[in-house]
């Protein structure tokens, strides 16, 4: 069962096999959680949205048909939930307690979770500084560019699928991606040497 495709597992769950859903959850909960976390920049909210995402998958299993890729459907659900949550957050003007308030305050809330445990101490220090920097730069990206960057760079989804998820043409996605890369390049200019060293 673990070798089955996502679509096959979903069809199995549709016919009542709870075990198939467990496999799907194990396979996708981490990427989805990270996508949501980098979208909403709030751990508790990301956890709630993660549950809501898979809950919608459970409820929509009866109407699921093998027409689209399962990951596309799953990330579409997650992204829609994130967009809704982001809109509500804008209305409330609430800031995340976990996200760094300022790029210069040195807080590494997200970085603490994603710290690389490998490498030498120097590389760990460099990597930590570089990670903090790029994390802050990513957080400062426009929402549309950030989601495309995360989906492409972190989730490793092709541009075609990202276009389906975000609901816009593929060229638009590539354009947003290019803007995101240029902004990140500017933010990481001072860490150019460190980045080269990290390579």
């Amino acid at each position, binding site marked *: 069962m673990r070798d089955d495709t996502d679509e096959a597992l979903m069809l199995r*769950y*549709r*016919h*009542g*096999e*709870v075990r198939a*859903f*467990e496999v799907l*959850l*194990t396979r996708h*909960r*981490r*990427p*989805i*959680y*990270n996508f949501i*976390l*980098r979208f909403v920049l709030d751990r508790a909210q990301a*956890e709630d949205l*993660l*549950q809501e995402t*898979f*809950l919608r998958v*459970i*409820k929509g*299993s*009866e109407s699921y048909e093998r027409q689209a890729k399962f990951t596309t459907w799953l990330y579409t659900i997650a992204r829609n939930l994130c967009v809704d949550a982001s809109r509500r957050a804008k209305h409330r003007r609430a800031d995340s307690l976990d996200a760094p308030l300022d790029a210069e305050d040195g807080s590494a809330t*997200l970085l603490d*979770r*994603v*710290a*690389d445990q490998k490498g030498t101490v120097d590389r760990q220090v460099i*990597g930590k500084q*570089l*990670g903090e*920097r*790029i*994390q802050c730069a*990513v957080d400062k990206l426009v929402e549309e560019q950030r989601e495309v*960057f995360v989906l*492409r*760079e*972190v989730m490793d989804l*092709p*541009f075609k699928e990202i276009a389906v998820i975000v609901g816009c043409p593929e060229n638009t996605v*590539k354009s947003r*991606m*290019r803007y995101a*890369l240029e902004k*990140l*390049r500017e933010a*990481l200019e001072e*860490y*150019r040497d460190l*980045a*080269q060293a*990290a*390579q």
Partner: protein
Amino acid sequence: MTSDCKSFDEKLLDYLYEELESREHETLKAHLEGCERCKMEMESFGRVRSAAKSLTMAEAPQAASAKLLYQAAQLAPRRGVVIPLFKRVVHHPAYAMAASFVVVGGIAGWMLLNHKMDMPQSPIAVEAAQRQLDEEAAGTEAAKGTVAKAGAGQLAAAEGEVNLPVAVPVAAAASAASKTTVATRMETTLGTTVDGKSAGRGRMDSSGFGGKDNTKEDGAAARAPREVATKEKAASAPADKMQWHASKALDDAVDVTNAGVPSGGVPVEAPPPVVAKPAVMPATENKIGDLAKNERGVAGLRYNDQRAPGPSSQPPSGPIGQIASSGKKERPVATPPPPAKSDPPVMPRALSAYEQRELDEPAVAEGQQVMQRNMEEARRRDFDALAQQKRKGIGSKGMPQPAAPSQALATNPAQKQPARDEQAADVEVLLKRHGEQTNRQDCRSADATYRQIKEHFPERMTPQGRLDHAKCQRVLGNYSEARNELNSLLQEAPSLRGRIDRETKLLEMEEQPQRAAEAPFPAPPRAKKAAAKPSQNAKPADADTAF
């Protein structure tokens, strides 16, 4: 910046993320080797990608996974064959509507086939039936007057020795269906009977008394009119309704039970001819005896019930003989009249050869016997009331007082028990017959059958049977009894509330026109009384004077 650089910029991301085909990839790679600007651009984006690799993925919370697995188990679609089969039906409105029609139609058809859903009677049909009953009642009133007049005249001519003709008009009324008015026919038959004494031996019609004959007729002289009456009855079933009114006009001395006359006027199958037997008809005899002023020279009925049986008295064989022999003092036994000239006032007699032959006749069908016995019981109960009413009057005239048959049965359990045992075997037949009579709306017969069952087997009466009885009472015009039955049934069988309410509405619908008709044009006292208590066969107060 060359045109190749513009083309490279367009495909920079595809090249960076390796989404180009191999040929385009090689072309762009060759361009990068020769273009410094594009090479630097590519390296800068490569550094960003390298920095982005430090964005490692966080672990998802396990608590969320546990909750999701629980939800998935709770909300998982159930396996099965039925749900997928009907999924299309459930999700499509047209299919759902068609399926609902099929289901509702199926249930309704099943209920109709199993008689679980009675169609309400049409108000038009009820009104037509009421109109028909009113017309017949009017005809009955005319018949009453005519018969009373004729009876009085003939009785005066014959010095009041009219016993048997009381029954003959009943048979005559049965033939009234052959386009002859009841009054004319009655007059004719009555006159013939009184005038022709040789053939006019008082004889009860077999159709009215279950084939029991309590007359003094001797052999073939009286056999012919009986056969004629039987043929008339069998040939003219609808005339039995007229026969019923005619009998009421004659003070309910006789009744008709074996006729099938549906209220809607649909002719039904006439009951089989009944073989006449000597029977006990004390009430009729009592009545006739009351009418008789002089017994000499009259072929009438005699009572011997309160007289000690003489030496020549021999109990007949068969069931009647058994009853007579076991309780001669309580049970009156009809005897044929002795010769007119040497006729002692009242003497028990032996059965005639004709009666004896008929009693011993083994060819009588079993079904006919059961029917006759049941009808006799019903008639006997009806005549009990008349007997009790007449007892005082007859006693004052010095006439012997017969004990009521039902009283005799009631006071002698040993005598009653055999009859009960006999009928116990026939209770199923009675119940079935009651249902059949109700179905074909033969209300009078159903009423008699119901009373039999109620008297001897009250525990076998079902709410359905009682409801049918209430219907019959409504059709017969016994509204008070019908209402009482419905009220009691409403308390004892609430499950039939819907049908009871429907029947109550019909009853009220039929009662209202009657009230409206009675209010501006009050009926004469006799008709009022007859209409008030038709089921009791109560004798009108002026019945004696009419004869």
